[in-house]
C-alpha cells in the first residue's frame, strides 16, 4: 500500500506546508456568544438536539477557567478575537460530487500530497479532508458503505446518522470534561465520524487530513469513532497549517469507543506549523483525545508522532472498562527552537485483568521544552490489572529540557504497575564517530534520533512511518552546529 502521504514525501527543507490557498471563504466574524453558536448550527443545518447540546456546553464553558497546570507557557488567548467558523463553501454546502469541488481546493490537497480524486488516490486509504471548519471531501465512501461502514464528515453524521451521534457523542469526553473540550463542544465545526458495524474488519486505512487555511480562525474539529463488537479499524490523522506569524488555536476532541472484542488503532502524525526559529507564530494544539474500551477484550492503541505546533498539550487516554481490555500509547514528541510539548497519556484501569503499555520518546533540541505527563490509575475493582510504562528522553544541545511526570494511583493490591525512565544526550563523541564514517552532522543526528524512536515508528503503517522519519529530519534542521 502506498501513501495517503499526510505530508508529502518530497519534503525538503523547513516547513513546506506553509503556503496559503487564496479562496473566497464564508467566515463568521471573530467573537463568541450564543448568537454565534446559533448561526453556526443553522449554517450546518443541524437538528435541534445538536444546538441544545452546544448551548449547554457553552454555558458550562463560561463558568470554567483556562487550565494552567501544565508546563507550557503562552500569553493568554483572547477568545473573542477568534473566528469560530470559516468555510470555503457558501452555507456549508460542500459539493456532492468531487467534480464540483473548487479546483483550487483539490490543488491544495494535491500539493500536500493527498489526492482527493478516488481515481488518483491510492487504493488502501480512504480520506476525509477537513479544510478550516468544513469537510471538503470524503473518498471511498461507497465502497465502505457496502460493508455497512459509515465514514463521513461529522456535519453529515449529525444530519444523516443522528441516532448514532446522539448515542455516542460526548459519551467518552463529556462536554464539561475540561475547558478546551467544553469550548470544542460549543463550537466544533467539523471532523470525522466513523462507525464500524459488528464483525467487520475495515479493509482500508481510514484517514482524516486537517488543514487550517484562513487566518485568525480556530479549528475545533471533533472526531468520533465507534468500533462495534468484534470489528477492527485502523485510522490515521495528519495535519498542516500555513506559516503565519500569529498563533492559531486548534482545540480538537477525539472520542474512540471499542465494544466487546473490537480493536481501534489510531495514529497521528502531527505537523502543524511550529512557529519560526525565534518562536513567532505557530499552532497552539490543545487537544482532548480519549478512547474507551467499553466491551470485554477490546483494544485501543494510540500511536503519535508530534513534530509540529508551537505548543502541544495533549494526553491521548484509554479508559479500560471491559474485562481483559488492552490499551496502548506509543509516542514520539519532538521539540526544537522554542516549541513546547506537554504530552502523555492516562490509562484508567476499571475492568479486571486490563493491561496497558506506555512508551514515550521525547526529543528536545534548541530551546525546546518537552514534558511527559502520564497517569496510570487502577481502580479498586481492577484485579489483575497490569501496566508497563517506559519514558525516554533524548537531548540535543544544552538549552533544551525534558521532564517526566509519572502519576500512579493504585487502589487494587493484585495489580502490577511498572515505570522506567531514562534521559540521554547526544554526545559530541557520537556525532564525531558518525562523521568519521562519512555522515554529515545532520545525518548523524537523524540516525541517532531515528534509532531512539524506532520502536514507536515501527508501529505506524509503513507509509506514515516514512513520513514521520522525514518530518523528524526536517524539524531537527539547525539543531546541530
Amino acid at each position, binding site marked *: 500500500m502506498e501513501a495517503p502521504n499526510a505530508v508529502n514525501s518530497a519534503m525538503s527543507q523547513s516547513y513546506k506546508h506553509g503556503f496559503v490557498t487564496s479562496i473566497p471563504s464564508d467566515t463568521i466574524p471573530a467573537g463568541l456568544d450564543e448568537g454565534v453558536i446559533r448561526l453556526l448550527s443553522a449554517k450546518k443545518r443541524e437538528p435541534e438536539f445538536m444546538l441544545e447540546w452546544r448551548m449547554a456546553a457553552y454555558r458550562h464553558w463560561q463558568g470554567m477557567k483556562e487550565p494552567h497546570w501544565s508546563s507550557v507557557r503562552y500569553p493568554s488567548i483572547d477568545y473573542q478575537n477568534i473566528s469560530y467558523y470559516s468555510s470555503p463553501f457558501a452555507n456549508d454546502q460542500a459539493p456532492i460530487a468531487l467534480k464540483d469541488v473548487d479546483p483550487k481546493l483539490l490543488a491544495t490537497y494535491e500539493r500536500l500530497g493527498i489526492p482527493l480524486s478516488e481515481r488518483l488516490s491510492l487504493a488502501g486509504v480512504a480520506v476525509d479532508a477537513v479544510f478550516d471548519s468544513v469537510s471538503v471531501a470524503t473518498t471511498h465512501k461507497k465502497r465502505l458503505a457496502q460493508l455497512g461502514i459509515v465514514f463521513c464528515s461529522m456535519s453529515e453524521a449529525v444530519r444523516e446518522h443522528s441516532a448514532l451521534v446522539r448515542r455516542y457523542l460526548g459519551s467518552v469526553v463529556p462536554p464539561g470534561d475540561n475547558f478546551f473540550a467544553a469550548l470544542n463542544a460549543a463550537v466544533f465545526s467539523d471532523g470525522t465520524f466513523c462507525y464500524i458495524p459488528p464483525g467487520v474488519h475495515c479493509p482500508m486505512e481510514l484517514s482524516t487530513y486537517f488543514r487550517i487555511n484562513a487566518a485568525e480562525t480556530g479549528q475545533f474539529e471533533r472526531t468520533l469513532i465507534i468500533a462495534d463488537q468484534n470489528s477492527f479499524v485502523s485510522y490515521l490523522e495528519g495535519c498542516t497549517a500555513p506559516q503565519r506569524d500569529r498563533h492559531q488555536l486548534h482545540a480538537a476532541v477525539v472520542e474512540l469507543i471499542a465494544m466487546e472484542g473490537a480493536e481501534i488503532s489510531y495514529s497521528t502524525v502531527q505537523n502543524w506549523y511550529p512557529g519560526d526559529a525565534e518562536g513567532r507564530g505557530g499552532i497552539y494544539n490543545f487537544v482532548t483525545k480519549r478512547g474507551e474500551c467499553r466491551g470485554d477484550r477490546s483494544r485501543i492503541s494510540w500511536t503519535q508522532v508530534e513534530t509540529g505546533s508551537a505548543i502541544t498539550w495533549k494526553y491521548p487516554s484509554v479508559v479500560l472498562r471491559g474485562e481483559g481490555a488492552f490499551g496502548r500509547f506509543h509516542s514520539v514528541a519532538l521539540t526544537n527552537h522554542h516549541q513546547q510539548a506537554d504530552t502523555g497519556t492516562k490509562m484508567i484501569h476499571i475492568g479486571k485483568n486490563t493491561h496497558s503499555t506506555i512508551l514515550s520518546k521525547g526529543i528536545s533540541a534548541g530551546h525546546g521544552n518537552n514534558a511527559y505527563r502520564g497517569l496510570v490509575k487502577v481502580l479498586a475493582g481492577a484485579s489483575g490489572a497490569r501496566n508497563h510504562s517506559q519514558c525516554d528522553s533524548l537531548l540535543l544541545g544544552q538549552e533544551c529540557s525534558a521532564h517526566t511526570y509519572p502519576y500512579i494511583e493504585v487502589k487494587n493490591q493484585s495489580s502490577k504497575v511498572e515505570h522506567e525512565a531514562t534521559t540521554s544526550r547526544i554526545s559530541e563523541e557520537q556525532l564525531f*564517530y558518525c*562523521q*568519521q*564514517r562519512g*555522515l*554529515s*552532522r545532520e545525518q548523524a543526528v537523524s*540516525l*541517532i534520533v531515528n534509532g*531512539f524512536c524506532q520502536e514507536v515508528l515501527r508501529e505506524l503503517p509503513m507509509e506514515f512511518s516514512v513520513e514521520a522519519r522525514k518530518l523528524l529530519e526536517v524539524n531537527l534542521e539547525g539543531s546541530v552546529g
Partner: protein
Amino acid sequence: MNILEIKNLHVSVLNKPILRGLDLSLKEGEVHAIMGPNGSGKSTLANILVGRGDYHMTAGAILYHGEDLLVRTPEERARAGIFLAFQNPVEIPGVNNVQLLKEAFNAHRKYGQLPEMDAMSFRTYLQDRTKQLGLSDDWLFRPINVGFSGGEKKRNELLQMLVLEPQLAILDEIDSGLDIDALTDVANGVNALRHHRRSMLLITHYPRLLEQVHPDKVHVLIGGRLVATGGMELAVRLEEQGYGWLSEVAA
C-alpha cells in the same frame, strides 16, 4: 606517489603543544607502524588527521593525495577514503550496526558518484564481510558498540573498515586490551585488509601485533617527534629494551 605527506607538524590540544615537528611520508600500499609510550602523542596524530575538534595545527602541513587535508570537514575526509579505527569506540544506543554501515556506505558511494547499492546486494556484501571476520549474522543488528567487550569493539571497527574500503586506514591501538587469541584474529583481519592501493598507519605500543602483520616501516614517537625509523628489528629491540634508550635522542 605519497598518499600522505606530513611536514614539520605541530599540534596543540587546548593550547598545550603535543606534536612538535613531526615528518612522515606514506606511499600507496605501505603499512607503517607508529610506536611510542603512553602520552607521546600517537592518538593526537590520528585525531588531527581525521579532523577531531580541539586539535589544532599550529605549524606545518598535511597533504593527502598531494592536497591540503585540513581544509576539509571530517566527513569529507572520511568519504575521501580516510578511516580511523578508534582507540575507544563510542557506544550509540538505539542504532544498530547495519543502520550506520548503510548510511556510511551510501555516503561514500554518493561521494564517488556511484548509485546506492540495493538492499539485497548490500546485505550480501555485508554478510561476506562478517563471515570474513568470523562474526555471527546477528552481529549486524546489535546496537553500535553497546555492551561490547574490548575485543568486540575492535572487531567492529575492522568490520566497518572492511565495508568502507578506505585508502588510508589509521588503526589506533587496535591490539590493546586483547588476549592472544583475539590478537591473532585482529591481526588476521588487518592482514586481510592489506591491499596494494591501501595504506595503513598502525598505532601501537606493543610489538606483538607487528610480529604478525610485518609493517614496511616502524617509527618511534617520543615527545611529539619521530625519533627513530627502521624495520621490524626496531620493534624487536623495543620489545627487549623498552623505550629508555631512545629517550636521550628525544630530549
